[in-house]
Structure formats: C-alpha cells, structure tokens
C-alpha cells in the first residue's frame, strides 16, 4: 500500500500516515496506557527527546502525542503514553497488540540536549508531563557521564495517577539520581510527600548557574513552578529553564493554524522552548 521509503517524513502527502503496529500495550493508570510501537519495514523514527507524533485511526481521527521513550532506548520501536480523554484516545485504548495505527512524524523541535551536556539537570514534570520529560530523562541517564547532578521532582494529583511507577522505583534506587515525588491528595498507603509540586523545591539546593531546569505540565503549573525556578526561587537563568507547551497541534506541520502563538507555530518552532524564548511572547504562558 505505501511505497518503500527510508524516512518517515518522505510521503506522497504530508497528511498520509505510515501504518505502524502496536507491539505491546499496558495500563499505567486508570486513564493512561503505554504503547510500544514499530514502524513498517524496521524503519526508525529517528526522533529527538521532546518531539511528538501524530497518531491516527482512519475513520476516527488524529491527535498529537508526545514520544515518551528516549532515542537511546528506541531502536526500531518507540513508546507513547496515551491518556484516554477523547474519541481517538478512547479508541486507541480499545486496541490490542498487533493492531495497526497511523503515525506521522516525528514533529516539533525537541529539547536541545547537546546544549544541556555538562550541566546539572533538574526535571520538574507534573502529571502527564512526565511522559515527554521521560524521553529526555532516559536519554540523560543513558549518557549519565555527560551530566552533573540529575534531580527529578515529580508531582501527581493522587498516588493512583503516578505514571511509570516501575521506572520511578528504579530511579529511586540509583545513587546518581535524586528523586522526589509528591501527590496532592494521598491515600491510606501513601508514605511520601504530600502537596503540590512546588513544595518539593524546598528539599533541594541547586548550583543555579550550572543548572538546566526542564518542566513539563499544564499551563497553571508553569505559573507556579517558574516562580520556584527564577530569581526569587532557585535563581536559574531564563535561558536555562525549558518548557514543553501544549497546544492544539492538529496537523503537526505548520499548516492548519491551530497551534499559533503570535508568529510562532508551536508544532514547528516548539513545543520545547526556553523561558527566555517565550517570556515576551504574548499568549505563550498567559
């Protein structure tokens, strides 16, 4: 059906997805499932941490989903963490391993990891934000020697909503990763921190000039996390604070207009931005 090709982006139509296959899918929480996906003919996605793909099912539709596996751990497969929120994602949740799905991408800029090397890494993902952050965290951990400290502050609303719990316990056990997890509302079994993600910042000291902060979460979280990271908080420079912005990236290729913020197409110029790049862009963080 689809002619042999070497790059996922060389198609007869920008909007024509490749037919990929679900190798594995397992639930992470009530709402999120983790998919391991293979492209046709052993093709590699060749993505960067922080990029996304357009996932589609013919007859239902298409949506942008962050790639949550690191390039270092991807090979000929990659992973997506899909929250069931709409028609497409509900249909995705009903699929089985072996089923095919449409993939276009990878799209977006991704995080400039080469500029992060040599620095301390402070990750502050909230909720589903851990999925895109994980693509960078695992890349950093697979190149561990190129980075200083690795600090991960992760917040979720409830213990049942924590994503990648197996990985969290692996990171917890490593002596070269400082992991702090918090939940807004604990349950009876929860023995860890309680409170929103900003309460974790008091637990850590950072060498501000040498630290890259990466925060991924909903708009309201950025407002509070940025206060912790900037001058009045940890004092990290604006250009060293990185965020991934959520927008309606319907086409992924800078055509459909939905993800515009002023002159910026989030799907092309982003979704990863330093705070210095977007602090003067009206609409970016408002």
């Amino acid at each position, binding site marked *: *059906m*689809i002619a042999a090709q070497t790059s996922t982006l060389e*198609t*007869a*139509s*920008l*909007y*024509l*997805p490749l*037919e990929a296959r679900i190798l594995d899918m397992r639930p992470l929480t009530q709402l999120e499932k983790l998919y391991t996906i293979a492209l046709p003919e052993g093709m590699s996605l060749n993505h960067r941490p922080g990029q996304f793909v357009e996932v*589609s099912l*013919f*007859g*239902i*539709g*298409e*949506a942008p989903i962050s790639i949550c596996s690191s390039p270092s751990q991807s090979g000929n497969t990659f992973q997506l963490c899909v*929250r069931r*929120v*709409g028609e497409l*994602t509900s249909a995705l949740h009903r699929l089985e391993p072996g089923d*095919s799905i*449409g993939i276009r991408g990878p799209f977006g800029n991704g995080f400039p990891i080469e500029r992060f090397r040599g620095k301390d890494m402070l990750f502050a993902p909230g909720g*589903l934000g851990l999925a895109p952050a994980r693509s960078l965290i695992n890349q950093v951990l697979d190149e561990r020697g190129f980075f200083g400290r690795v600090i991960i502050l992760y917040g979720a609303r409830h213990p049942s909503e924590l994503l990648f719990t197996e990985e969290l316990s692996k990171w917890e056990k490593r002596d070269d990763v400082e992991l702090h997890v918090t939940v807004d509302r604990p349950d009876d079994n929860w023995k860890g921190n309680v409170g929103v993600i900003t309460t974790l910042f008091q637990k850590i000291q950072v060498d501000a000039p040498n630290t890259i902060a990466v925060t991924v979460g*909903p*708009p309201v979280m950025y407002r509070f996390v940025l206060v912790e990271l900037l001058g009045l908080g940890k004092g990290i420079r604006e250009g060293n604070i990185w965020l991934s912005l*959520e*927008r*309606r990236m*319907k*086409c992924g*290729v*800078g*055509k*459909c*207009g*939905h*993800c*515009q*913020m*002023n*002159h910026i197409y989030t799907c*092309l110029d982003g979704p990863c931005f330093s705070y210095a790049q977007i602090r003067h862009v*009206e*609409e970016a963080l408002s």
Partner: protein
Amino acid sequence: MKNSMVISKTSMKAWIEHLGKDFRLIGPKPFQDRYVFGEFHDAAEIDLNYPAAMLPLKKILLPQREDLIAFGKTNGKAEPVLENRPTIVLGAHTCDLHAIASLDHAFLEGYIDQHYRSRREHTLWISLECLEPCSEHAFCKDMGTLVTPDKFDLHLTDLGDDYVIDIGSERGAALLHGFDAVREAGEDDYRQFDQVMSQKWSCFPYRLEVDFTDIPRLLATNYRSVLWDELGERCLGCGACTLVCPTCFCFNVIDEVDFSLHEGKRYRTWDSCQLNEFALVAGGHDFRPSRAERLRHRFFHKYKNQVATSGLAACVGCGRCAEACIANITPMEVLNSLHRRRVASARHKQEASPQ
C-alpha cells in the same frame, strides 16, 4: 507592457471555447444578486464586469472541503487524493491574485503541502485589471494590491471594444498559441491603454488613515488596547470574516466513513480562529477563550505576525470581511481607530508636558 496582445470582445467567446478544450474553466458567474467563481463552458455563463465574487479564489486552491486521504478500514488502503485537472481561472481581480502569494507562503514554505501544490501547479490565472472600485469596503489601494503581483500568467485590461492582454508567464503565453483571433498590440492600443490606466487611479479612494507599512508598529504598541475588548463585545464569533477572506487558510481535518463502513475519506475543511474552541486542547484548556482575544489574534496575524514571517500582510484589502460582518466590524474601523487613538494620545502627552 511590451509585447502585449489584443483580443476583441467579440472574439472572447471563441477564445474561451479554444481554452475549454484543454482546461477546466472557472470564472465569475451571476448567482442570485451576487457573483461566484464557478465552472463554466460558455462565455455567456460568465460576466467579466463583476464587482467582487462572494468567495475568493482560495476556494480553487483550498476548497471548503478537500479530500486528503482515501482509506479502507479493513484492507489497509491509504492513498493521497491529489487534484490535478488543468484549470484556468478567468477574470481574477488583482487583490485575489495577491492573496495567492499569501497562500503560497502558508502551504509551500517549510513543509510542502502536496495537495495545495498540485492544485497550484495545475491552475493558470487570466486576471483582470480593476478600473473602478467594486465595493465601499475595498481598500486595495491602501494595501498595494490594485496592480498585478510580480507573478501572473495573463492579465486583461478592458479598452472598451477590446481587451489588451499582458503576458506574465510562458504558461500564460501558451494559452494564446493556436488561436488566431488575437493580434499584437500596436501604438494606438498602447496609447489607449495608458489613457485608461492613468484615469483609473483617482477613482480609487484611500480608506486607511495609517500607512500600511506602519500597521505592524501600530499593532505592536496596541496589544493591550481597550479597543479589543470593545470589539470583543460586538463580535459574534461567527467566523464569517475568515471564511470569506482570500488569505485565511486555517483548516480542520475530519474523517468520514461511507455507508459501507469499509471505506472513507480524511478531508480538510475551512476552520476559523474566530470560532470558540479553535485553540482548545484535549486536556480542556482553551488558549484563546474570549472573542476579544480571538479577534485580536486575527488582526495581529494579518497585519503584523505574517508580515514578520513572510514580508506579506495577510490582507489584500478586498473588503469581503467588512461586508460579511453582521456586527459591522471592518479592518478600516479597527486600524483607523487604533491610529486615531494613538494620535490623540500623542497630542495629549504633548499638551501635558511642560515646555
């Protein structure tokens, strides 16, 4: 205007028949009390002396509904749908031609949209010089679109009994090959042409009080103007302005399964940044929830942000949005209001400052 050709109006019918042999023809057809661009086969179906078509020519290059992918639900079929019928659009006004440059920027810069490119490459334009204003809302003269853009195929100017044909491209020139009822323009034709042209300029009014090169700056300093809130109160958020706009290109993509439930189409359809939920994401956050913000986004995109990225304003001054707006919000009013307020505030500051 060298090497122009001349065709008499009485020969237009024959030329159209000649062109119709190899091309799908699209031109301005009377529809109710207005005009629409539509397919035609005979010169009698169109009227080149039309004011402005209801919908701009983007409907040829980016139709309201355009199939992108034909798919099979069970057989793994997924094929791009590309429109490649050779097409001639006859009678395009120069504002609408300028708008195509803006669409080209949207669809051919960066990732190339093959669906748009295929339509673009298979379409030729025989445009028409505007000799009098077509609408009280048009401000083409302000926007610099009252003349042909650098690139065109053939351009007609009405000299009364004849049209003089300016040749802009080789593909355009080829449309005259094998058709005998055209002749090379002579000195008399050029003289008459110059006369007609030099008379036309004064017929067209300037309608903006601000020079169009100054509009990006005017907007840059007025992001937080109360005018946006005032307009937001009036705007109905219906999106009519963007639908009739020759440069608006935003689209949505929708899947449609046919009755067999086995086959279907993934198609795109015009969308509008003025509509509620345009910027709504799956998680529930709407990044432009108010009409004031959405209207401001439209003006900033048209007159500032696209100028920054492409050098072209995403407005050609055709006036369709002004005519379509049931709340009577017009670009002239918005830009002139911002300008007047700027002038008033500068005067106020000057008077208040001790000399």
